[in-house]
Structures are given as structure tokens and as C-alpha cells.
């Protein structure tokens, strides 16, 4: 690790001010991803701003929904009674993430900002457009079993690893961020950016902005929501494919539905096309199959990940069957 300065802050305003005037500064909360990136030489901040002392860790249920502080720990959110009752997909996605130890440490804000697990990105001995813009992408022609079939470009096909983000996408959550110019709200659907020609730009955060909270609206779909995560071992692994589904059913009729996916897109992937195939229709094997086909219509599989096109449709069918 490169030597870096360290400041523990007590006030959010102070945190963003310090970040704005300190070159190469990074916020640290749980540190569970940042420290690995620093050890691997992928991130080389000159100064860490420890935000753990900020008063942003509360999880509160409001009439409008749920407000999760940016510093709330994964464990606290997953175990929160209101979350389990009103937004079960959120608790399930969090419990399917990482390990108990990491869930004790990692913050919600940090979770949303974790970097891809692409092996080329995390290896400074390999080229990578995300790490070193313009250096090339070995994954496109190389090992890409873990990579995206949707939303990729010639420059990058890496997936975003957060299960939480997939769940939040199915819940229409809003990310609150604070910068030197004050606070703003970003719908989670607008938060992540596809790689295009600039895969090193992953989200809409501006320099020195800090995630202060995530707001999750209350809804009928949220109450009937679940997360299915498929992977190559029983647990403690990132998703090969995952599905977050939230449905409002009247009998078999789908009044409303939200579908989001992990492991298949370069960002947490929402599929309005798949939702449209279900909304207003009966939830049947046929309608679910139509939704699956709509989801993968534009899929561009590579050498090692073609199976995801099939697997994600099956995962969707499986989860919707459980929700029926």
C-alpha cells in the first residue's frame, strides 16, 4: 500500500469539505473493499477520510418508507424487523452477500460503491480499461465466465458485484448524496453508468460526494419481494446470476412488478421489457417465459458466459414461482 494520510471526521460537512480540498482523498467506512483495492495497488489514495464517526448509521421506518443511513452496516439492515417485514428482498440480498464478518463491517454506502470482481481489473499485471483507461480489455477475448451479457462495450464487460444494489433497483430506491454544494437525490436506476468508452467512470457521484442515505419507498411490490442468488458454491461468493423480484399480485394477475438482475449486466440490471411482459397479465409459465426472453433479447454472450442467457431465465422463472 502506498502511504496515505488519515483523518477521522466527526461532521458530514467537514468530511466533504476535506475531501474536496485534499487531492487523491477517499472516504473509508467499513474498508472491506477499499483496503483490498489498496493492497492490490488498484486504488492508491493519498488520504483516507474515516467517516465512521458520522451520525449516518440509523435505519428508520417513515410513513414514506425506509431511510437507511449510508453508514448503516449490512448486518444491521438485514436484521432490522421493518426491513424484513416490508422489504424482504433487501434483507435477503444482504444476507446472501459476503460473510458474517464482512456484513458486520461493511456500510451500505460502501457496498454500493464496491468495485467489480473482474480478475483483470484486480490484477495490476493485466491490462484493464477500467483501471488504466486505454490499456485494453483482456476479458472480451479471455476468461469471461463471470462477465456481463448485457450492457457491455468493447472496452469493458465487467459486472457490478453488489447484491444490495440489485435489490434496491427492484425497490425504486433513491440514493442521497452530499457534496460541497449540498445534498441531492439520485434514483438508483440513474446511479450506475454503463461502461461505453469510459469504463473507469462507474457512477454519477461527483468528486467529494458522500452517500448519506438510501431511501426506499413503501409499496405493495416491496412487501412481496424476494432475492435469488445462484453461485458455484453454497455461500460466501459473488453472484453468477441473481434476481430480485417484487410483485403485486391480485390472484394470479400481476398488478405491478419490478425485476432486477445481478451477474448479467455491466450495472445492476433492471428490465422494463421483462416487467412489461408480466404487468397486467396472469403469472403463468408462458408469461414468465416471455418475460425471460424479453430480458435477454439484446444479450451479447461471450465465449465462457453464454450459459447465463439460459440460467438467468430459469432463475427468473424459479423466483417468480416462489412468489406466486
Amino acid at each position: 500500500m502506498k502511504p496515505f494520510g488519515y483523518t477521522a471526521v466527526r461532521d458530514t460537512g467537514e468530511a466533504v469539505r476535506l475531501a474536496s480540498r485534499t487531492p487523491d482523498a477517499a472516504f473509508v467506512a467499513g474498508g472491506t473493499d477499499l483496503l483490498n483495492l489498496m493492497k492490490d495497488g488498484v486504488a492508491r489514495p493519498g488520504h483516507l477520510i474515516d467517516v465512521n464517526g458520522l451520525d449516518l448509521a440509523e435505519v428508520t421506518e417513515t410513513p414514506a418508507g425506509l431511510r437507511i443511513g449510508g453508514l448503516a452496516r449490512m448486518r444491521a439492515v438485514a436484521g432490522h424487523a421493518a426491513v424484513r417485514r416490508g422489504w424482504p428482498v433487501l434483507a435477503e440480498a444482504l444476507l446472501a452477500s459476503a460473510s458474517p464478518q464482512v456484513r458486520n463491517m461493511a456500510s451500505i454506502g460502501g457496498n454500493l460503491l464496491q468495485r467489480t470482481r473482474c480478475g483483470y481489473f484486480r490484477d495490476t499485471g493485466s491490462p484493464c480499461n477500467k483501471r488504466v483507461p486505454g490499456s485494453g480489455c483482456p476479458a472480451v477475448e479471455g476468461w469471461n465466465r463471470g462477465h456481463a451479457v448485457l450492457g457491455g462495450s468493447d472496452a469493458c464487460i465487467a459486472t457490478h458485484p453488489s447484491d444490495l444494489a440489485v435489490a434496491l433497483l427492484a425497490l425504486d430506491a433513491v440514493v442521497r448524496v452530499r457534496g460541497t454544494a449540498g445534498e441531492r437525490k439520485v434514483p438508483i436506476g440513474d446511479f450506475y453508468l454503463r461502461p461505453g468508452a469510459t469504463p473507469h467512470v462507474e457512477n454519477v457521484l461527483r468528486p467529494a460526494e458522500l452517500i448519506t442515505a438510501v431511501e426506499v419507498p413503501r409499496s405493495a411490490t416491496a412487501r412481496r419481494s424476494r432475492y435469488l442468488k445462484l453461485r458455484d458454491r453454497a455461500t460466501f461468493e459473488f453472484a453468477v446470476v441473481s434476481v430480485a423480484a417484487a410483485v403485486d399480485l391480485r390472484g394470479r394477475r400481476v398488478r405491478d412488478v419490478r425485476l432486477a438482475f445481478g451477474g448479467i449486466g455491466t450495472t445492476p440490471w433492471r428490465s422494463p421489457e421483462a416487467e412489461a411482459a408480466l404487468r397486467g397479465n396472469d403469472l403463468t409459465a408462458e408469461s414468465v417465459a416471455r418475460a425471460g426472453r424479453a430480458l435477454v433479447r439484446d444479450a451479447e454472450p461471450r465465449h465462457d458466459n453464454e450459459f447465463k442467457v439460459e440460467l438467468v431465465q430459469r432463475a427468473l422463472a424459479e423466483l417468480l414461482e416462489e412468489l406466486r
Partner: protein
Amino acid sequence: MAEHTRRTVLKSAAVTAGGAALAARAPAAAGAAAVSIQPAQTAEITLSVNGRRRAVSVETRVTLLDALRERLGLTGTKKGCDRGECGACTVLVDGERVKSCLTLAVMRQGSEITTVEGLADGDRLHPVQEAFIRHDAFQCGGCTPGQIMSAVACIEEGHTGSDEEIRQWMSGNLCRCACYQNIVAAVADAAGEVRR
């Protein structure tokens, strides 16, 4: 090693703030002042480990794991992967299990840290330690301190309702010798004992 009281920590912080260029982060309760350490400087910090306050000199980039092992001589906590992927470095911080390779020592001042060396009560082993021996829940021992710390927390969290639950909640600790069935048995057994 000298045991620092909180007062001496605060005093030394005050002194260095006015003189030399480094300062230690005060315990959380101490107030709102930001604390800052410059790059490549060694900070004198205090960690509370196994009930003792221990002074230690670290750069900011020193993980809690390396502070324990390389600076405080507490080598019971193991470094298996240094990336949070094996669990061998698991310790308790304020009673919660964390991976000590994924946190910086400077971030853990003012916290109460428990390592495998701090579990036994004199010669009397902790029930989890006893159960691990009784159930042969280890072979090489490389992951064992982490398994044991994780097990203590797993019981405390209440995640020992069934073998299946233990299997899930002990999956953050790899055992390459793969004594997993014996680990589950030991955790279940110790959970009963701790509750008694």
C-alpha cells in the same frame, strides 16, 4: 509494554498536536475534534486488546491484523489471505466478529479487541475452545483461531438454532483441512454450554 491510560493518550495527543506533526485519534467519547495523521508518519496509538491497553507505533497503512501480529506479538490471529476471503484473521471488535485484515489499526482506537489469546480465563479454556478439542474441530490449526472467534460471535448472535443455521453462519471461515462437520458439532455443543 507500557499500559496507557486514556488520560496519557489524550495528553500525548495534545502534546504532539502542538509540536511534532502527528496526533492520535482520541477515543470516540472524547469529542468532535478531527484527528489527522500525515502520510508515511508513524503514529503512536493505543489499542485495547484482551482487556489491556497497549501502545503501538504504526503507519496508517498497517492493518489491525498486522498490528496484532507484527507489533504486539499476538500471533494467535492468523493471516491466511490478507483479503477477507478466508476468515483466519477473525477477531472480535466491541463484541462483533470482524476480519482484522480488512480494517486499519488507526481506525480501531477506542474499540475493545478480543483475540484468541484473550478467550481463556487463566488456565480455564472458553467453552468454544473446549468444544473444538472435544469434537476434533481442527487439523492443521491454521484457520482455528479465526473459526473459534467466529464461533464465539455466532453463538452470541444467536445463529446456532440448527446445524443448517450454523453451517451458513460459519461459512465466512474456510477450513482447508475441511473439518466442517466437526466444527458444526463443536459450535452446537458450545452454544448449549454458553447458554447454560
